């Protein structure tokens, strides 16, 4: 991708005192995780991860706890040093940066939101939000202005002088988000930002973040262990297992064509109504047989199953899928039901 803002190339992270020995052994002998643990007492945290995120895209990294997603995201701002591989932020190799340059990049270009908020308990909300700006040496007045603007974006105006402990969990996470946005960074790293919140507030914040995202167009790496959230938020999703990215694709790709049993298990319970498009389940007109007369409902190939169900309930006849005026496929009620169940490819 030419306009990639975040690029990771063959990133490895091995924890342990003999990490570099273990890395060599992995390279030369191709040993697996258990052998690394046994021979070097080292734990493989991230295994050969590569992906890139385009400008303005929301990329979701999803996996269960312990799958290495939080470790991986900390490589992007080099809170964790990779054992091998390169990470580029807007074309610049972050691993090659000097300390001062790295700090500048972290403060100006990357904002981060944490699962446990990690606000400073002794500072007011406004001073918390202005923290990154303060670190860059910005004067108090400009800082306060910027902080108030950020507070407004997360609809918390007027809360600037409270202490974090006075706010509820959801509000604290809004502050966390405002803090990440205050320096107007290019990139947002969100480490399970909504996981610790209760479902209603989570949903609320997700919606708000999505609409906010449309306005500010930040390149976002979003970590979650919740597939529903990943599907809601992510333009693309990377699924991690045991430190390895097993599949990258859009929500539809992952639901309709899971890369392996692990991913298939994951997506088994997901509603396909809004995810799968007609083109994925339709049967070619030749296979379906003759189509006689009129009154057939018509849909486009990228309409989702929800639309097809709507059309299909109003008529006895199968739905025709037309790309422009060309008939590309047919969806009968049987096909639709199988498709909903997820058995279309089987």
């Amino acid at each position, binding site marked *: 991708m030419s306009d990639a803002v975040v690029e990771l190339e063959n990133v490895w992270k091995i924890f342990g005192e003999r990490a570099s020995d273990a890395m060599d052994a992995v390279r030369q002998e191709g040993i697996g995780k258990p052998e690394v643990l046994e021979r070097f007492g080292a734990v493989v945290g991230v295994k050969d991860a590569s992906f890139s995120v385009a400008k303005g895209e929301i990329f979701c990294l999803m996996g269960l706890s312990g799958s290495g997603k939080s470790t991986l995201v900390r490589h992007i701002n080099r809170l964790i040093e990779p054992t091998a591989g390169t990470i580029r932020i807007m074309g610049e190799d972050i691993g090659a940066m000097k300390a001062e340059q790295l700090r500048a990049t972290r403060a100006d270009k990357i904002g981060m939101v944490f699962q446990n908020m*990690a606000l400073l308990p002794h500072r007011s909300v406004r001073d918390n939000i202005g923290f990154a700006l303060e670190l860059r040496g910005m004067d108090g007045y400009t800082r306060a202005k910027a902080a108030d603007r950020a507070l407004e974006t997360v609809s918390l105006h007027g809360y600037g002088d409270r202490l974090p402990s006075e706010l509820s969990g959801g509000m604290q996470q809004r502050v966390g988000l405002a803090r990440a946005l205050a320096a107007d960074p290019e990139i947002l790293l969100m480490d399970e930002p909504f996981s610790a919140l209760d479902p209603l507030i989570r949903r609320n914040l997700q919606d708000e973040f999505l609409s906010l995202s449309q306005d500010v167009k930040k390149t976002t790496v979003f970590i979650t262990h919740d597939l529903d959230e990943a599907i809601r938020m992510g333009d693309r999703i990377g699924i991690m297992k045991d430190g390895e990215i097993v599949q990258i694709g859009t929500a539809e790709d992952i639901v309709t064509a899971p890369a392996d049993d692990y991913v298939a298990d994951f997506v088994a319970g997901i509603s396909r109504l809004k995810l799968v498009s007609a083109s994925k389940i339709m049967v070619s007109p030749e296979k379906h047989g003759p189509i006689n007369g009129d009154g057939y409902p018509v849909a486009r190939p990228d309409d989702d199953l929800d639309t097809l169900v709507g059309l299909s309930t109003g008529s006895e006849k199968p739905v025709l899928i037309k790309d422009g005026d060309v008939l590309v496929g047919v969806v009968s009620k049987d096909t639709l039901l199988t498709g909903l169940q997820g058995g279309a490819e089987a």
Partner: protein
Amino acid sequence: MSGAEKIEVEDRDVSVGTFVAQNEPYFSNVFERLQRSELPRWHMNIWGLLVPWLWASLRGVWLMFWLALAIDILAIVCLMQVVKFTPLLEEALKNPEANTTLIPRYTGWINTYNAMGWILLIGGRFWMGSQANRWYYNQYSRWRIDHAVAHGVVFKRVVIGLVIMAICAPLTTYRATQIRLDERACISQVRTAETVEDLLARYNVDDFASLERSVADEITVLQTAFDRLDGLENPSDAEKAERTQTRRDLRAMTREGEAVAEYQAITPKDRFDCNFIDDFPTLARFDAPPEIRYRRVPDEEARATGDEDATKVIVQESPPVEGRRINIFTYNAEAIDTGINYLRAQYAGIFDAMTNVLRQSLIRVEVAFMQTPWPVVAFLFMALAWAYTNRATTIFVAGSLAFLAAFELWQVAMQTMALVVVATAICVFVGLPVGIWMAKNKLFRWINEPILDVMQTIPSLSYLVPAVAFFGISQPPAVLATVIFAIPPMVKLTALGILQVPESTKEAALAFGASERQLLRKVELPMAIPSIMAGLNQTIMLALSMATISAFIGAAGLGALVTESLGDAQAGKGLLAGIAIALVAMMIDRILRGIRASFSRI
């Protein structure tokens, strides 16, 4: 995502059979009954009853091993008292009239120890027998969670157990049969050995027969010489002197001859007793080091060439007293003395400068406290209490101040305050950076932690001695001793406060581009403030308590009153001064606590 969450089950065998390795049916049965609480109280493990330590070590139930060993040794020690006292009783019975007190005492002891020994032995065994399987079951439960817990039947463990028993049991048993050793006997043993060694070297012989012969010859020679001199009718002065000298030599020689006989009379049992069953034996004795004194004197040579104030350290060395042998403790204590003398002489300027700085700052603070009119000081205290604490505390502060004023202790108390303030200030200025460094550097922490522990546990009085050695007797060394005593909580709690800052908060600060310095200043220190304040509070309290003790080396104030009254055995005076110290301490503590509470935002 139901199916996706695979629970990783470690492939482990947690069956009773794997755990016990041998005799599975028996243990399966016992464990099951235990689980159902159907095992009767009197259930016995026969091996646990008969040879509990062997069984326990074989099965790896180490707690039981140690308990069984301890009970058995205790029982045997009791029974050995019987062995010890029976011959004494027999001896006493030979002459019943003369030993009317001893006989009933020995009889009583023998009976009591006998009964206790058997009760311990038998009761202990039954306890072990009944508990063995229960403990073993507990171990099984722990093993199911953690496979590193000892399991199975391992004969290596029996060997370890036997070695432990071989080290502990025979020596303790033997010790129990012996009457308490005479400490002097062991010292004279060492001395005799030294004398004999010297003699062997002097006569250049290596067997006792020739040594005895040589000594006897020498004695004969001396005796003949003495007899000749003693037989003279009219000895001249020179002859008289020679006679005295010969008599002295003869006596010394006779003593040495006795030492040889004594040395040969030492039995291996005596030697064993002195080396193994009582105090740790004297390992080595050294020739005493020469006595060295350092003194700083005007350097005349340098002065002659124009350097007006030149001084130099001169060393006065007196050779060691011949034949004075000392043990390791004394040797090192004297070496430290020599070292301190050297530092004191060599760097007199530095010590004087430190003393001076301390004295000057102390004087300033004392002026501030003592020369400020008392109503002002009292008002300030009251205002602080009013602003930061509740009404009850304010009344308490008022009462305390009234106590100090009414008993005419005001100025003295202010002197104590000044000392505490200076000491605390030094503690903060030194303790804070050291604490931060400790939090940041693992190695420094590893080195410093034991040092701080030692500083806290050394009796506070022993600080006074080196303080006096370096700085003499006056207020400054008292301040220094106070600082050393009071600084550990400041350092420790600073380090603790910084270490307690959650990793996630620090990570967030780093993620927003904080440098190490910014992290410390803007995140770690502010968040450590409550802990640091607690450290400050403790430091002040310790400084106050040390203020009394440092009065021994010249600290003025309430402490001096206490030590004075101790010297004069004036209980009332000492008690009143003590109460005053307690009141000052409580006032400061309460006010500081209030300030802390109102500043803490976390």
